């Protein structure tokens, strides 16, 4: 009898979830917080290696990396974030076909981003930026010199982000297929919101990578 009373009391003081409308959303947030630390560690390591380059020095990024192309890639990811929120807005008002259209546009943005990144990597590798070497000639100066750690740190950070974009595109395709099969309605659309959280996070991280790796 006493035991039953205790159980009832426990139910009364049950703590509500941080995301009452969807536990999946909470799961995604927890994953994103952990992933932030992964990117944070990579960027902190980049800062440490750059500051610790000593007399060898660090090549100014604008001697090797083209800003215009990556500014365009940033614009593309911002646009894809807008199409993602538009997809969620559409399904919340019950418009499935509009949601599928905007999800398709978001996927297209991600695929073009990956294509541009592959083009950039190919261009940099053929011009001498590898894991062990930096190019002999800069975009502004005839001769450049600096730490050869520029290559590995650049490829590690942009590559890790590119993997996230690849994962996001696959995730979005899965959600689009579910959408085309009629899984989502104005009442049931948390999965669309959760994939949106992931996609916006990828955009947010690129904003940081663009600033710290390309501009500074």
């Amino acid at each position, binding site marked *: 009898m006493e035991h039953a009373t205790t159980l009832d009391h426990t139910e009364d003081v049950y703590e509500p979830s941080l995301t009452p409308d969807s536990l999946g959303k909470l799961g995604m947030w927890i994953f994103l917080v952990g992933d932030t630390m992964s990117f944070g560690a990579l960027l*902190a390591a980049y800062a440490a290696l750059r500051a610790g380059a000593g007399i060898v020095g660090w090549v100014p990024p604008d001697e090797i990396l083209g800003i215009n192309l990556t500014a365009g890639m940033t614009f593309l990811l911002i646009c894809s974030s807008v199409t993602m929120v538009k997809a969620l807005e559409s399904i919340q008002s019950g418009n499935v076909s509009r949601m599928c259209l905007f999800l398709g546009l978001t996927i297209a943005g991600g695929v073009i981003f990956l294509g541009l990144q592959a083009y950039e990597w190919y261009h940099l590798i053929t011009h001498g930026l590898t894991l062990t070497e930096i190019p002999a000639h800069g975009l502004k100066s005839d001769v450049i010199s600096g730490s050869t750690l520029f290559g590995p740190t650049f490829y590690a950070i942009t590559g890790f982000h590119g993997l996230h974009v690849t994962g996001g595109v696959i995730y979005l395709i899965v959600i689009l297929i579910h959408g085309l099969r009629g899984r989502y309605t104005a009442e049931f659309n948390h999965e669309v919101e959760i994939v949106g959280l992931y996609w916006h996070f990828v955009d947010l991280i690129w904003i940081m990578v663009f600033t710290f790796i390309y501009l500074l």
Partner: protein
Amino acid sequence: MAQDEHKDHPKYMTIFWWLLGLTVAEVLVVIPDLPIAIKAILLIGMACSKAALVAIYFMHLKFERKTLTIIVLTPFIICVFLVVMLMPDLTLDARLDGIEKPAEVVDTSAH
């Protein structure tokens, strides 16, 4: 309740124009030959503003519980702390420059 909250969503295109404007401003800051400290403050300030806009409006943090916002902010604070923790290592060369190196130890064990 969640549906009511979603009705209050901001105009996403306004956020888009802000993000686009800040991106253009970032690229413009790089062009003139500004001192690195001023450039860094401006660029990091704009990048953080853009990240905040994405998190608050696109990721709907504005409509979530405040506890979640605090949890999400924690890794960013830890990342800053991580860089600060690395500072002693980063400045090691500079600090050792002013210190006289100890005399070389001669191995006398062979005698």
